[in-house]
């Protein structure tokens, strides 16, 4: 039998944490502690990230879509993006300081597409939420907004340029 695991789950884009402990009791049977509640869970793995869970005798279907860094867990109509971290990963995550919007913020392309318009010139003072550029993908135009108030200190693309997903576009400081 494997050893118990203790995790911290980051919810709501990292703004909320919850502790979860998993203690294996028998193959496929676990005791899961969530705060002060303890559940007996029978977990059966179906194909491709689908779990059948019997939680205290109630049957649930959960599907896990592994994205980076969060896993998107769907239960009925609800999708929970959850980052699940053990001690070591939690320390790394905190050291990376990705929780804050202090300092220089880089804007990345959320999807592959084409830069059709640049709305703020290099060096411009911008407000939080102000549209910076427009990317066209799948016949639709999408405005990308400034993550914080500050100055546009980097502009790495030109109008008409094609960009990949996660390409660096500009930065605000």
């Amino acid at each position, binding site marked *: 039998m494997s050893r118990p695991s203790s995790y911290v789950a980051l919810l709501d884009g990292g703004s909320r944490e919850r502790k979860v402990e998993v203690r294996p009791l028998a193959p496929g049977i676990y005791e899961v502690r969530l705060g002060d509640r303890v559940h007996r869970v029978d977990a059966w793995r179906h194909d*491709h990230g689908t*779990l059948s869970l019997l939680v205290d005798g109630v049957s649930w279907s959960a599907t*896990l879509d592994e994205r980076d860094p969060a896993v998107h867990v769907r239960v009925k*109509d609800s999708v929970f993006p959850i980052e699940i971290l053990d001690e070591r990963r939690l320390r790394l995550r905190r050291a990376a300081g990705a929780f804050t919007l202090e300092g220089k913020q880089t804007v990345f392309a959320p*999807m592959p597409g084409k830069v059709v318009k640049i709305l703020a010139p290099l060096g411009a003072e911008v407000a939080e939420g102000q549209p910076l550029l427009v990317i066209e993908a799948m016949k639709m135009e999408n405005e990308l907004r400034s993550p914080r108030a500050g100055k546009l200190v980097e502009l790495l693309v030109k109008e008409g340029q094609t960009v990949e997903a996660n390409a660096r576009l500009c930065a605000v400081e």
Partner: protein
Amino acid sequence: MVVGHGLGLGHVLEGNVSMPPRKISKVLIANRGEIAVRIIRTCREMGIATVAVYSDADRGSFHVRNADQAVHVGPAPSRLSYLDVGRILDAARATGADAIHPGYGFLSEKAEFARAVEDAGLVFIGPRPESMEAMGVKTTARKNMAAAGVPTVPGAPAPIAVLEEARALADRIGYPVMIKAAAGGGGKGMKRCDRAADFAAMWESAQREAASAFGDDRLYLEKFLDQPRHVEIQVFADGHGNTIWLGERECSVQRRQQKVIEESPSCIVDARMREAMGEVAVRAARAVGYRGAGTVEFLVDAGRSFYFLEMNTRLQVEHPVTEMVTGLDLVRMQLEVAQGERVPAQEQLVRRGHAIEARVYAEDPARGFLPCPGKITYLRVPAGPGVRDDSGVYSGWVVPQYYDPMLSKLVAWAPTRDQAIARLLRALDEYTVHGITTNLPYLAAVLRHPAFRSGEYDTTFCARHAAELVRAPDPALEDVGLIAAAISAHRRDAEQAEAFAARAGAAGAGASRWLRQGRARVLRGGPR
């Protein structure tokens, strides 16, 4: 089949433009994705061979694998491939196709394409180019419809030069009215005027706005329809002068003019109104000598008066809704009409039950409906009674960034509206797409919304309830989500630890036995 209408305009058309009957043996589908797959399916059933076309981005697309033949027609941007008339015709000639089905979008409503297809000696599966032209430009269509006695939104389709003349017209059609720029678009130079006292000031202000925005200050006037509903009628005409209507589709759940949910029948249409709308739609189709599948779109006001909006001269995205309630295959009927066969008689048509369609999109409602192209890592589609999934994707397919992000159309049929809603919700719950974000939760939220359930909704539904439709996940389900994530992480960690131990053991086993023996002796403190 029985000939429905032997008199009137139909008779004239029969004499004018009878088509030589011609068996179609191979169809080129000038489209991609879901609709190409849909057309191929019917062709298969009819024993007709199919030719797919594809761009650089679509070699791996579902429709290419499903067709009997496939021809590469250019780079990913559609203007260089799916919209390139020359390349599409070359592909048809090279493969010996005798007909072209345009699907919807792309070249489907381009009269010059239909004409080029016919000039090449091929059958265009759709209306005559003249009909497309007569309905193509809004002001022309409106004029044609008014001449045919089809009700249009009251107002002046042509620009009005003099303020007094405009005010007189506004008084006649009744307030509120919309003042619109003739050259307009995007809401510029567009004003809603609620009373006569404000008219002059608003007219002049709209004139200034239009002049500065478009360099053209001409204005026209239309009655303002408050919270209209969008109801459309499916029509079908053959080359023998028979035109029939197949019933309505309610499409008022729209987001930025983009339909989200469609259903039939509409909650506000009773038998008498349906009959009236059907007859008007047939009149509209006949007025332009229509042939094949078409849709006449109407706006319906609070008093249930209906006004012609436009005619779509092609098969619609939402055609399965009509197929489910009539039991007909509209693509098969398109092919039959193109072969010179007749449509069924109006009185043969039967509509039963209720059908609802939801459009599944690769988009993220939480981020302003941002399109989400990318790889589908896993796909599981719903099944069970009364469910139909018209999809163009598969597990492992990378949804390209170049085209419309619609993945599939999920349709449910049931004897009643309530049962159809429950069935579609159940099917949405079974729908699983991994790797990219979809609007599945948004679709479920629409179906659960009290305004939708009551049937009391109009074209402002999505905008008005925007905040309620993009909901945070249900907190009551968070614990189950966390349990799933934690158990999955625990198993992964345990498997990794086991694999690590096994590797370490294997590495140990690989080392010299003498050495291990020696170490063990030292540890035991035994003799060397």
